[in-house]
């Protein structure tokens, strides 16, 4: 078994111009609680930095899709990611998660981190 099969570094995103107005309707603080309670962090990390199960679970630091697309994405979820149906995650909770994810800063310039330049 390989130590690493693949590292997917892309953020989840469809369109950079489609920053969701829906983020404003979600509650970021509640979204953080749901994100942790529903185990999103188990694969994607508490600060949504990404992780891995069978393959890489991408970082979701900057969602470049509208909230409606985000909710639809969760309902069908690709590859190894389980689909989150409305039975276990309401549209409102999904919108809160979206707001939480949108509230977080993205990556920082690596040149500012001496430990990453050695």
């Amino acid at each position: 078994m390989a130590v690493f099969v693949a590292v997917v570094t892309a953020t989840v995103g469809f369109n950079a111009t489609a920053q969701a107005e829906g983020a404003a309707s979600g509650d970021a603080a509640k979204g953080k609680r749901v994100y942790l309670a529903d185990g999103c962090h188990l694969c994607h990390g508490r600060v949504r930095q990404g992780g891995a199960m069978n393959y890489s679970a991408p970082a979701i630091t900057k969602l470049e899709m509208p909230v409606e697309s985000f909710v639809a994405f969760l309902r069908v979820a690709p590859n190894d990611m389980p689909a989150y149906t409305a039975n276990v995650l309401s549209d409102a909770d999904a919108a809160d998660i979206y707001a939480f994810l949108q509230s977080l800063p993205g990556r920082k310039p690596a040149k500012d981190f001496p430990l990453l330049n050695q």
Partner: protein
Amino acid sequence: MLVNAETPVIICDRLARTPAGMARLVELAETLQCAVIDNAGRMNFPSRHPLNQSFRRGIIRQADVIVAMEVNELWGSLNPFSDRIVRSSRPSYKSSARIVTLGSRDLYMKSNYQDFGRYQEVDLAIGGDAEASLPTLIEQVKRLIDDSKKAAFEARGKKLAAAKLAAVEQAKSDATNGWDASPITTARMCAEVYGQIKDEDWSLVGTTIRLAWPHRLWNFDKPYQWNGVSGGAGVGYNLPASLGAALANKKHGRLTLAFGGDGDFMFAPGTLWTAAHHRIPMLYILQNNRAYHQEYMYLQAMAARHGRGIANTDIGTTIKDPNVDYATVARGFGVYGEGPIVDPKDLGPALKRAVAMVKTGQPALVDVVTDPR
């Protein structure tokens, strides 16, 4: 085939079995100026070599010739699959690609499906030891390369080198995510560890599941700097196996270190007593996510798949209530212990103290409370 290919790709896994293996693969790759994807079953190829494309596996889609050397499970390397109710897979290579295997697996086939996984259709299967075959292969490749090929090879190499640089920069950028977070990100943990050992004669002999940060961020360029993995993904392997490697390293005076999961540690913690008793120096960095985390994720996936929520998926999969104090456990076995380290700012100093202890000839354990992966 290799010389005439436009985009040849070498995939290797358990190739290098002696210190000569890495140098031979480097010579072949540089002669061809071709991409190498290292599955890291052994220390096959320098991590920062411009032709190392291990974190650009999309390049397999462009390959017209794929040569797999001592690859443990080739089908898995070439066919990503989705582990869902209806499993699906898709080849990650072109249908026109020629696939060649060179390795010893064909020589010891048994009737055990677990031994082989799924069969990959190949165009040419060469049974034999890949490392031993490399000098002949290199010689033949050099003989067939004429001047008309050299310019194309050089251009190919330059493209790969540029892509490699971009991949390294991407890795650094990815590592900044959650840099100051607590629990500590695995990227921060690995960067902090490298900061403490990079100027030593180090040897990394163990790792946790899917921990790719060392190979993304560190400079591995010596045959003994990576020990490979079990090949079977068995939990409980890492701590005792790492100690065995540390014993082998002891006479060379190398700084041996290993990452290990807390779940793995729970299987054979008495290994630490053996380390203390025999004075085997080893820095053991415990990636403590307070779970048998791979299993935890599987249960979560299964529960979500059936639409029943994940409220019960921590039963039997997490290691909390109470949390284990691994540094105290280590001290109980006579091993120097640091932790639990929760604040990333405390990690560098703790590692520094532990490295100093290891350099006196003693084992040391640092318990790092991390985010899951």
